[in-house]
């Protein structure tokens, strides 16, 4: 009750006295945790190495510059693989995530038990990092592009399905009821009443995830799951720093390009 009577006038404050106390206690606790963490990190660090960091960085940079343009010729193939891993992985994930999202959304799920199962699948997919999925699939399928695609797909299903089912739950109900009232079948209610409303989020989320996947597919190669990461791993292990910098520049350009595409597409569907 933030309103009090004081000399017959009503005084309003944002928080109750207890609320204020709780807020201060919360800040104090957060500060204490921060200090404790800082101490623990400091104890676990060999500061001589850290003190040395700027010299190491300068050293590394000197070896990386200039990049080796001659190395580019070898990179086109793995670069193409990388784009394919991201794109195919995203497409497969979208195909699986769309039905999953409608099963998970409160207003479209056929049954609460189905909804819980769908939510569980979404959480499982999201809780495992792409790199870990990649390690699993390299064991299953052997090293190569297939393992990369599978890893990207499995991680993206949860991401896309989650954002999509949230969009489905936020749609306006009146248009949907209007379609039901015409005598449309459940499938028609879905395609006429619901799809058009979630279409922009659907495209936006898919393209956004593709953009993320371009970046993620550059590292799945580090564990053998194909793409340019394989090359990066090889060059780092061989201490070929000018090759490493060439790869980094190319990855940078590719990511900029994919962000540009994804921004364009999202703007186009609004």
């Amino acid at each position, binding site marked *: 009750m933030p309103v009090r009577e004081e000399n017959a006038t009503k005084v309003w404050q944002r928080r109750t006295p207890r609320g204020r106390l709780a807020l201060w206690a919360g800040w104090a606790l957060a500060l204490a945790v921060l200090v404790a963490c800082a101490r623990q990190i400091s104890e676990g660090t060999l500061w001589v190495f850290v003190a040395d960091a700027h010299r190491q960085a300068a050293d590394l940079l000197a070896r990386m510059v200039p990049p080796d343009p001659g190395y580019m010729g070898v990179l086109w193939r793995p670069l193409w693989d990388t784009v394919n891993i991201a794109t195919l992985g995203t497409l497969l994930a979208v195909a699986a995530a769309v039905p999953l999202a409608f099963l998970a959304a409160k207003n479209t799920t056929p049954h609460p038990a189905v909804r819980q199962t769908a939510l569980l699948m979404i959480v499982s997919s999201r809780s495992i990092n792409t790199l870990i999925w990649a390690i699993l699939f390299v064991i299953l399928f052997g090293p190569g592009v297939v393992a990369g695609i599978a890893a990207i797909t499995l991680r993206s299903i949860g991401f896309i399905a989650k954002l999509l089912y949230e969009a489905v739950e936020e749609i*306006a109900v*009146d*248009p949907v*009821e*209007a*379609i*039901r*009232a*015409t*005598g*449309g*079948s459940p*499938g*028609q209610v879905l*395609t*006429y*009443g619901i799809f*058009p*409303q979630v*279409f*922009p989020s659907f495209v936006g989320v898919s393209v956004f995830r593709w953009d993320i996947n371009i970046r993620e597919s550059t590292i799945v190669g580090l564990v053998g799951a194909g793409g340019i990461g394989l090359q990066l791993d090889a060059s780092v292990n061989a201490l070929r720093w000018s090759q490493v910098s060439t790869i980094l520049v190319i990855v940078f350009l590719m990511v900029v390009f994919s962000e540009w595409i994804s921004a364009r597409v999202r703007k186009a569907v609004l």
Partner: protein
Amino acid sequence: MSGNDKVLQIRALRKSYPGGVEVLHGLDIDLRAGEFLTVIGPSGAGKSTLLRCINGLVPASAGSCRLRGAEILGLRGAEMRAARRRIGMIFQAHALVDRLTVMENVLSGRLGYTGFWSSWARRFPPGDVAGAFRLLERVGLEGYEDRRADRLSGGQRQRVGIARALLQSPELLLVDEPTASLDPKTARQIMRLLRELAAENNLAVIANLHDVGLARMFSDRIIGLNAGTIVFEGAPGELTDSELSTIYGEEDWSTEEVADVSA
């Protein structure tokens, strides 16, 4: 008048929402073809619930509702959809699908008659498309067919909603606050259009209205609903101030300007 003239016969209609109290306490309503019935009553009286029970958007709890003699309460699946095609419903102006075009919105009135894949591919029978063009012209939206619904004004949207409902070739029209959020002039135009179209097609209409003036102007008969019970039923002329107080509660109903306080 023949017996066939009776489009809708509602008997002892009751509705309780899950876990809630009863909101409709046994309503009896009869409706003839070509009759324009208006339901007025305070917010929460159950006007929308009544309409939604009739076309099964919400299931009624008890009672009977006959459309041309055939029971339609408690129908399920395909039978329910077959009944719904015969009942057009007009909602408030925002019940169009925003990202679809005017034509797609109007044609969605034929969904009950169209297979899934044809509707998915937007391949409606030529007769339906011709009907849609005719109705668009009739409601004054000729040339708007490719406009996206979210680029229309409130009054234009409501015209699209009317065309959508009429393309169903319904026998009964349920209209829920068609003029909410429209300016007074547009509201009258919409009501006049509804009234004309109902007459042209010999439709039975039940319309929920908040505007008593519009109800008086455009109805053949008025029902006053209060807390789920019919407390008034009669011709517009019989709706006196004392009847209004029965429906809405005590209030000064005079429409003269409030007397100048300084005088």
